[in-house]
C-alpha cells in the first residue's frame, strides 16, 4: 500500500451521537487560530468547544462524555463552502428541484434564499462526510439576486440547520454594459436612502418613482449601514476597481466573488479590506473577463494581506474544497493560510465570529482527519457539527454498499413466512 494512504487503515468508530459532550484525546495536531500545534486535546460540550489544551481529559462526573482517541490525527475546524446552493438545489437540470434562481434579471434584494432550504437534501450528507460542516447558501440571477444565508450541514429542520438567514446581499454587474450595471447598483443604493428618508411620503403616495419595490429597497438598509456586505460576482481587474470606487463612494462593505484577476489589484483590495472568494483551479482563460487569471492568484492576494476565501463554487461537489485549497498550496500559498481560507476566512468575511476556528467558546464544528487535510488520500475520520458526531453515511455510501456485490438490483426476493 502506498505511503500516501497508509493512514486510511486507522479508522475510528464515530463517537456516540447522543453524547452530551465529547473529549478528543491523544494529542492530535490541531489547527488553532495561531497555527498548527501538536499535542492538543479538545472538549466539546453543548454545541461548543469548551476547552482546548494539552491535557483536557474526561473529568469526574463526565460519565456522559464520549472519548475519542485522536492519536496521530489532524484536527481542523469544519470546512466552509462559501459559494453554494446547497439545500436549494437537488438536481441541477431539473427546474422543479432548483430554488436558487429567481425569474428574470430584476432586483430581488428582499428574497431570502434560505427560506427554500431543504435540510433533507441528499447533497448535505454527501458534503459533510468529507469535512464540509457549513455552507454559505446564495441566491442566483438578476442584478440583485437576494440575500444569502449560512447553514450548518446538519439538523432535520430549517430552524436547526439555518444559523443566519441573511449574511449578505448578492449582486452582479454587467449585462447590457458594465457601466449600466454599475449605474443600476448606484441608483438602487441611492433610492434605498431616499426611501428611508421619505418613507412616510412614499407610503402616502407622495413620492417619485423608485428603482425597485419597497421591500427590495428596505432590504438594502443593512448594506447602507455596513451591517451586511454586498457580494458581487466579478473577475476583471478593471471591474474590481470600479466596484471598489462604488463601495467607497457609497460607504458600503463588499465581498468579491470570482476574482480571477484580483491579483492585479491586490494592494487596493488589501487597503479597502475587501475579502475575495476565489477558486484557484479556475484559470483558463475561461472568458474575456479573465484573460489574466493566474494559478497563484490566492498566494499573491494572501501575501498582499487580502482576506482570501477559497471556494469550489459548487454545491454537489463542495467536497472538493480541500482539493481546491491543496492546489492553492501547490501554487505557492502558505499551507496554514489555505486552511484558514476554508475555515476562518469565510467566517470573517460574513461576520460569523463563532465559526471556523478551534478555540474555547467557538461553535463545535470540528473535523478529525487521518493526515494533512488538503492531501487527496487523507480520510475524514470524524465530523462534529454543533458538537454532534455525524454518521459517515450518505446516499452515495448506500449506493456503493448496495452494489458492493452484484447484481445489487434487483434486491433479493422477500422471505416467505
Amino acid at each position: 500500500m502506498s505511503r500516501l494512504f497508509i493512514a486510511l487503515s486507522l479508522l475510528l468508530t464515530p463517537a456516540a451521537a447522543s453524547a452530551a459532550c465529547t473529549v478528543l484525546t491523544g494529542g492530535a495536531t490541531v489547527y488553532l487560530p495561531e497555527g498548527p500545534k501538536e499535542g492538543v486535546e479538545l472538549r466539546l460540550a453543548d454545541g461548543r468547544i469548551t476547552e482546548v489544551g494539552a491535557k483536557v481529559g474526561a473529568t469526574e462526573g463526565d460519565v456522559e462524555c464520549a472519548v475519542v482517541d485522536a492519536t496521530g490525527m489532524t484536527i481542523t475546524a469544519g470546512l466552509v463552502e462559501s459559494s453554494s446552493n446547497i439545500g436549494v438545489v437537488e438536481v441541477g437540470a431539473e427546474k422543479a428541484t432548483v430554488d436558487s434562481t429567481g425569474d428574470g434579471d430584476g432586483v430581488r434584494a428582499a428574497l431570502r434564499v434560505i427560506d427554500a432550504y431543504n435540510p433533507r437534501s441528499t447533497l448535505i450528507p454527501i458534503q459533510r462526510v468529507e469535512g464540509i460542516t457549513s455552507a454559505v447558501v446564495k441566491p442566483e440571477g438578476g442584478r440583485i439576486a437576494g440575500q444569502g444565508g449560512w447553514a450548518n450541514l446538519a439538523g432535520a429542520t430549517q430552524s436547526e440547520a439555518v444559523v443566519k438567514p441573511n449574511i449578505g446581499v448578492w449582486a452582479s454587474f454587467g449585462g447590457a454594459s458594465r457601466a449600466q450595471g454599475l449605474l443600476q447598483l448606484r441608483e438602487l443604493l441611492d433610492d434605498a436612502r431616499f426611501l428611508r428618508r421619505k418613507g412616510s411620503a412614499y407610503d402616502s403616495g407622495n413620492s417619485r418613482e423608485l428603482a425597485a419595490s419597497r421591500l427590495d429597497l428596505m432590504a438594502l438598509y443593512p448594506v447602507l449601514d455596513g451591517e451586511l456586505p454586498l457580494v458581487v460576482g466579478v473577475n476583471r481587474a478593471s471591474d474590481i476597481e470600479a466596484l471598489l470606487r462604488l463601495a467607497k463612494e457609497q460607504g458600503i462593505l463588499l465581498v468579491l466573488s470570482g476574482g480571477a484577476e484580483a491579483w492585479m489589484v491586490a494592494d487596493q483590495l488589501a487597503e479597502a479590506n475587501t475579502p475575495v472568494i476565489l477558486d484557484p483551479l479556475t484559470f483558463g482563460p475561461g472568458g474575456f473577463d479573465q484573460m489574466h487569471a493566474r494559478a497563484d492568484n490566492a498566494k499573491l492576494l494572501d501575501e498582499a494581506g487580502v482576506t482570501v476565501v477559497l471556494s469550489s463554487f459548487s454545491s454537489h461537489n463542495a467536497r472538493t474544497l480541500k482539493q481546491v485549497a491543496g492546489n492553492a498550496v501547490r501554487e505557492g500559498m502558505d499551507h496554514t493560510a489555505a486552511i484558514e481560507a476554508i475555515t476562518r476566512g469565510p467566517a470573517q468575511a460574513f461576520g460569523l465570529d463563532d465559526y471556523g476556528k478551534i478555540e474555547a467558546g467557538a461553535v463545535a464544528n470540528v473535523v478529525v482527519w487521518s493526515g494533512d487535510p488538503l492531501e487527496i488520500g487523507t480520510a475524514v475520520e470524524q465530523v462534529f457539527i454543533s458538537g454532534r458526531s455525524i454518521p459517515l453515511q450518505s446516499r452515495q455510501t448506500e449506493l456503493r454498499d448496495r452494489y458492493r456485490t452484484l447484481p445489487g438490483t434487483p434486491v433479493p426476493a422477500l422471505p416467505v413466512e
Partner: protein
Amino acid sequence: MPVFARAMRGCLISLLALSASAAAEEGPKSADELFEAGLAPVESSVLFETQTVILSGGTVLTAAGDVHPQGFVVLTDGKVSDVGAGAPLAIDGAVLIDTTGKFVTPGLIDTHSHLGVYPSPWARAHSDGNEATKPTTPGVWAEHSFWPQDPGLQRAAAGGVTSLQILPGSANLIGGRGVVLQVVPHRGSRAMRFPGAPETVKMACGENPKRVYGEKGGPSTRMGNLRGQRGAFLDAVAYKATWDEYAEKLEAYREAKAPPAEGVRRKKNAPVPEEPKLPKRDLNKETLVGVLNGDILPQIHCYRADDMLSMLQLADEFDFDVRSFHHAVEAYKIRDILAEREVSVSTWADWWGFKLEAYDGIQENAAMVHDAGGRAIIHSDSSIGIQRLNQEASKAYAAGLRMGLELTEDDAMRWITLNPAWALGIDGEAGSLEKGKRADVVIWDAHPLSVYASAEKVFVQGALVWDATTDNPTWSDFQLGQEVQP
C-alpha cells in the same frame, strides 16, 4: 482484444490502399482510396528534432506493472529505447536529467476533451462542438472544428497530458467523428493527429439528445433516441452492401485489366468485366460503415446503467463493439457486463447530480470497474479538469482504497495512461513506459497522486514541450500581446 485486432486490420488495409493508389490512379477508385483522400496531409506533422535524453535517479512509474523506486528511462529518436531499475548505461552525447526525488510517468491521455471545439475564452464565435441541426450527423468531423490556438492546449500539456481525443458534443445521437491528437503546438489539427490512431465516432444516449431535439422534431424520448440510432445503422447496412458489391466488381475489373503475372496465361478471349460504376458517397453512412467494419471506434456518452445496456443491445443488433462508454456514472452497477465485453469506462472521479441521469454517481465508480476486471479511465470533459487528471485519478483511487478494494498506484496511473490509450486504439504506441513505445513522458516534482505534484517536464515523442523550471513561450497566437502594458 477483438476490436483492436479489427481496427488495426482496418489501418493496414488503408495503408496498403494508399500505396496501391498510385498504381490505380487511372480508372475507378476503391472506397479506401477515396477515404484516404479525406485524410491527406497538407502540412508535415514532423514536429521537432529530438536529442537522446536519459532520465535517471527518480521513481519510475511505468503503468505497465512495474514501479522502479530508483530507475531510468532513455528517450531516443522519439521512442523509449530503454527503461528499468538502477542506473542506465552511459550513452555518448546524451543529455542526462537527474530525476532524484522526482517521479517519471508516461504522458497522460484524456479520452474526452472539447479543447479546440469549445475553446477558451468562451465565445459564441468559437462554439463549434455540436452540429445541432439534426440528431444524426455522423459525417461531421471534430477535426474540422478544432481551433489549434486554444490556450487550453498548452495548459493541458502543463498538466502532463500528451495526447487526447477531441470529441463533438453530446447534443446528437451520433454526433460525428472524434480525433486523437498529440498535445503539441501546430497550425492545423491534421498535423496534430496522433500517427496511426484509428478513427473514432461520438454517440450519445439519454437526456441530451432528447432535450435538444424534443421541441425540434424529436427525438423527445429515450425510445426515440434508440429509433434514431437503429435507423441510422439500418441505412448504413444497406449502404455497406452497395459498396461491398462495388468492391467485388472493382477487384474483378482491376484483376482483368492488370497485366498477367509472369508465367500466368490468361484465357484467350476471356470476357473483360465492365468498369464498375462508383456508387454515390454519403459521409454520414461512410462513418457508420467504418463502425460496422470495426475500423472506427465508437465512443458513447451514456450515464445510466440501463441506457448503457440499451446501447449494448444496439451494438449487438448491428454487430459492432462499443469501445468506451463516456461519463458512465452508473458503470459500477453493470461492471461485470462491461468487463466481460471489454468495454472501457471513461468517467470522472466525483461529478454527479447536475442532471438526473447523473444522480447515482459515486466516487468509487472507476475503482469498482477496475476491481471487476474492467478498463477504468478517468477523463476530463473539462478544460480545467484536464490540467489535473492526476489528481482526479488520485481521488478515484483514494475512494477505492477507502472501500477496501485492493489497488496499486500503478493501477491508478493506468486509469489516465494505458487504459485511455486502449480506448483510443493507441496502446501499442503509447500509455506506458516500455521499450519501443513513444517517448511521451512526464517528470513530476512530487508523487503524481499527491495534490501538491506538478508536471515539471513533459516530452511528446521525445521532444520537450513543457518545462516548469523555465519560461515557456505561449503556443497560442491569441495570447500574444494580452499581457499588461503599463
